[in-house]
């Protein structure tokens, strides 16, 4: 009961802060709104209704000849997509699996495995369309249900999706696959927060609701825009901007999903941990991880796979991908060192679990920053995240009072917020960052003021926290009222492996 109150007050507080922020900055979108109306028809003619799809089969005749995708880009994106699948199915599942007690490992592996599969199917059916087609500022439409129009069997043509460079495209179907892995991984991340006590059917029902009403809209708000090729003249800019997602319109930088993936999932996890309640015996009985080697294997797979996640988010095999690659590498290493050093200083010993957790913390924090900051920025972000997330899983966890079993909020929430805010700092060219595109017509790169950009980043974080918080609250409540969230106490004591799945991991 007290937990619920605490949760509600946190949500209310952030909502208040957010509305304050939006009203302060309300001028910007409001001012551009009329212009948007005016130029919208022109833009529609030039651009198809798909995500960033520019050169769809039925491209306007007056447009320049449709760009042909580069085989190098296609190869890199295929590999990146595979790497993200590797992050989730073996990586995340093993990372989580090792952290639970031996009677629950199969349940965690199953929840990750089946959630990943479920979301992949939903993505093809309607998720992609909701996230990456034109709709309003919050969510897309249903034009691409069942990937309608992505591939035309009659003519054998594939629609193309835009990247971040003018004239560079990749097959839209590849973009769909790449983004499917993000959606599926994000939902799988939440499993860690309510591990060891939630009903399997309840997990799946929650995933369907949360994916539909939180993941797809947030992905749309942060990542949907009309693509660089659409920006052909000054007059079109406001109209095109108005069609993009809300957070994209604000100008928030999120290279590979600090808000969409990590903060989004972490808030859902925290809300879940509050609503489901603590594990039986929490705080009294030992709930020590049953296999840290499995956790280390999982963390290592996550690190390797994350190169696909971050460097792949460049959407082409170019400079931006290379920068994101190096930053993903070095920030993670810095976070491992920082976590271990902090642990050694505070507790006298550096632990394997600390090193593995530090790696994940660094990976999470560098996600929004990957291609958006310079070399030193990445090292600082990693180091700060390593220490901040150690605080997240210890002091902050005690303060929050929720049994977030595997520290989804402590690592992904804290790391995600640290990364999102520091992206606003280190993106600045004065601090060695690459800056951001200030004018998509000419593809001019510049820098906002650090304060201004950090404020935009903070707004994006707050909106994500509130949106995911509210959706999660309602979704968990609905599941609780229909099928119930928790297994019985007896089943929980016996372990979910036998109780929910009828099998044991380790047979003597």
């Amino acid at each position, binding site marked *: 009961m007290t937990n619920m109150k605490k949760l509600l007050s946190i949500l209310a507080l952030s909502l208040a802060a957010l509305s304050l922020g939006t009203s302060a900055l309300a001028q910007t979108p409001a001012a551009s709104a009329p212009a948007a109306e005016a130029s919208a028809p022109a833009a529609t003619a030039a651009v198809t209704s798909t995500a960033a799809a520019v050169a769809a089969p039925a491209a306007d005749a007056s447009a320049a000849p449709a760009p042909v995708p580069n085989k190098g880009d296609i190869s890199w994106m295929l590999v990146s997509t595979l790497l993200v699948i590797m992050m989730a199915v073996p990586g995340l599942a093993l990372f989580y699996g090792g952290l639970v007690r031996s009677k629950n490992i199969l349940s965690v592996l199953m929840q990750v495995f089946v959630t990943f599969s479920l979301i992949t199917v939903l993505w093809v059916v309607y998720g992609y369309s909701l996230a990456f087609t034109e709709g309003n500022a919050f969510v897309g439409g249903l034009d691409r249900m069942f990937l309608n129009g992505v591939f035309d069997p009659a003519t054998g043509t594939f629609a193309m999706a835009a990247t971040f460079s003018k004239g560079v495209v990749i097959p839209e179907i590849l973009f769909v696959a790449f983004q499917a892995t993000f959606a599926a991984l994000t939902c799988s991340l939440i499993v860690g927060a309510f591990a060891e006590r939630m009903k399997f059917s309840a997990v799946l029902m929650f995933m369907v609701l949360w994916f539909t009403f939180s993941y797809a809209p947030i992905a749309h708000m942060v990542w949907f825009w009309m693509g660089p090729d659409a920006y052909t003249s000054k007059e079109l800019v406001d109209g095109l901007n108005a069609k993009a997602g809300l957070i994209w319109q604000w100008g928030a930088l999120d290279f590979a999903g600090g808000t969409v993936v990590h903060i989004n999932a972490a808030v859902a996890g925290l809300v879940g941990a509050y609503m489901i309640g603590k594990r039986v015996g929490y705080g009294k009985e030992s709930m*020590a991880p049953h296999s840290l080697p499995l956790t280390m294997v999982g963390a290592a797979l996550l690190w390797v796979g994350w190169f696909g996640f971050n460097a792949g988010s460049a959407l082409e095999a170019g400079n931006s991908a290379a920068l994101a690659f190096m930053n993903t590498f070095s920030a993670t290493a810095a976070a491992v060192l920082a976590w271990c050093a902090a642990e050694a200083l505070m507790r006298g*010993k550096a*632990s394997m*679990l600390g090193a593995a957790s530090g790696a994940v913390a660094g990976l999470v924090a560098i996600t929004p920053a990957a291609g958006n900051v310079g070399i030193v920025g990445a090292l600082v972000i990693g180091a700060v995240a390593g220490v901040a997330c150690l605080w997240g*899983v210890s002091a902050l966890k005690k303060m929050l009072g929720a049994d977030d079993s595997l520290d989804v909020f402590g690592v992904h929430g804290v790391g995600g917020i640290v990364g999102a805010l520091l992206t606003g700092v280190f993106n600045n060219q004065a601090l060695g960052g690459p800056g951001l595109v200030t004018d998509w017509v000419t593809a001019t790169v510049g820098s906002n003021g650090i304060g201004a950009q950090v404020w935009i980043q903070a707004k994006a974080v707050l909106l994500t926290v509130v949106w995911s918080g509210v959706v999660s609250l309602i979704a968990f409540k609905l599941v609780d009222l229909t099928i119930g969230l928790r297994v019985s106490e007896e089943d929980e004591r016996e372990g979910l492996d036998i109780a929910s799945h009828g099998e044991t991991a380790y047979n003597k």
Partner: protein
Amino acid sequence: MKMVTAIVKPFKLDEVREALSGIGVQGITVTEVKGFGRQKGHTELYRGAEYVVDFLPKVKIEAAVDDSLVDRVLEAIEASARTGKIGDGKIFVTTLEQVVRIRTGETGKDAL
């Protein structure tokens, strides 16, 4: 006949077994056990969670021996299992009423 039960440090098991076979003990039974004595446990830390481990792993050795052998068995175990540090374990001796070798049906001393 006596039943000698010794609780020793796990890494000393091999030395104890060698010492016992050296003085003619025909067989022993070994069980992995946990317990506490004067030796303190330790603390394990997993992220924010701290667990005090009170029960430490030990090995329990049981040997049924003839009365004439008991003193030498005790000496052998003491010598081979000792490290001089706290937590070396204990030896208990109890009287054994009957022993049966299942295969042959022999009883008492013959069955040892």
